[in-house]
């Protein structure tokens, strides 16, 4: 049933849409200036409802946990502002997309429900970005889920890139990819635990059960 999408703006501000309705409304929002303006005011009213809830006292431990986590991210994460070679990699793939989403009025969902695997790992508390030299890096979630963001040229004919998770001297195959101009965003198919290293080699098409060449991209050990 086609319906007037404007009529969903309040339900959206209240987070009362299901996933499908929300996606559809966000598409509409991107095109509809009027809804974005209306949403700004309705969000203020929704936030007032937040203040209307009875207050509760969080534990001091929560405050500490948040601050510790924030500080650890600042140290481990390659800061986006520092001019590293792979800054444009991230800027291009996630920051711009997220900034565009925020400007289009999509504040909260773009972090969690994003289709971008890199952003979805990085949005989890406890996630880290581990540098892999000037080619890029690997984002590792607290659950070991990992995503590579690498600026590598397309693999030569009859060759493929193969990702590896290396732990205690043992390399486990973790996915094939062919590379492309710009940045390749590749999910690592095996969990990356503490103490592991993520590597990429060039292998014959179809991949290899064990690396046949020296890794040309290697991460630091994941803490």
């Amino acid at each position: 049933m086609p319906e007037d999408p404007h009529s969903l703006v309040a339900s959206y501000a209240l987070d009362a849409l299901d996933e499908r309705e929300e996606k559809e409304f966000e598409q509409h929002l991107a095109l509809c200036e009027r809804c974005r303006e209306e949403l700004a005011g309705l969000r203020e009213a929704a936030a007032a409802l937040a203040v209307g809830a009875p207050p509760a006292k969080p534990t001091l431990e929560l405050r500490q946990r948040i601050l510790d986590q924030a500080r650890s991210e600042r140290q481990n994460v390659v800061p986006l502002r520092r001019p590293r070679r792979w800054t444009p990699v991230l800027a291009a793939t996630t920051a711009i997309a997220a900034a565009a989403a925020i400007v289009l009025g999509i504040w909260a969902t773009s972090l969690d429900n994003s289709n971008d695997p890199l952003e979805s790992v990085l949005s989890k508390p406890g996630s880290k970005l581990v540098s892999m030299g000037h080619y890029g890096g690997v984002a590792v979630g607290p659950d070991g889920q990992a995503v590579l963001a690498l600026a590598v040229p397309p693999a030569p004919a009859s060759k493929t890139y193969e990702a590896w998770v290396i732990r205690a001297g043992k390399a486990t195959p973790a996915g094939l990819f062919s590379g492309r101009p710009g940045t390749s965003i590749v999910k690592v198919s095996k969990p990356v635990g503490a103490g592991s290293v993520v590597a990429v080699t060039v292998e014959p098409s179809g991949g290899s059960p064990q690396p046949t060449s020296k890794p040309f991209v290697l991460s630091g050990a994941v803490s």
Partner: protein
Amino acid sequence: MDRDLAHLTDEAVLSLVAESDDEALAELYDRFGGVAYGLALRILRDESLAQDAVQEAFLAVWRTADRFLAERARASTWILTLVHRRSVDLVRRQEQRRGEPLESAPEPVASEQVEEQAAIRFQRQVVQEALRQLPPDQREALELGYYAGLTQSELAERLGQPLGTIKSRMFTGLTRLRDLLAQAGLEESLR
């Protein structure tokens, strides 16, 4: 380092957060942590899940403050939007809880036990008074939608009303709430 951030507006503190200033993040948490946790607890009714929601929201603030700054919207609105969203995401994963009767929302701790800024306490009174002025069916749609984390379709089913009716109650209710709050001068009192 001994700095006094207390005189800064929320937005000025947020711009320090965007530069990875952790003292500024602590300041924002001290301003809104109580409201954030109260909201999360009201929705999730579980202390551990509520803490997770608040933590995720404040870390999202930490990670994306620089992108949000260009919005020129109110920092508190953004923070509470993130907290609400995380809480709703979590409650929607708690399948068994969704079947519970709507009446069972407990009242968390009495407000006098919570130290908070007088401005927030005042704002809460204004909001509660404005809610009382709404027609009961609109107030119900807002409260169940916002605090129980129900979608408009679920709400329609629970209340045995057509979806269109629930949608229009939410729209009319939230628009009216916005206007009532503006009349009450809430905008100015927050600055």
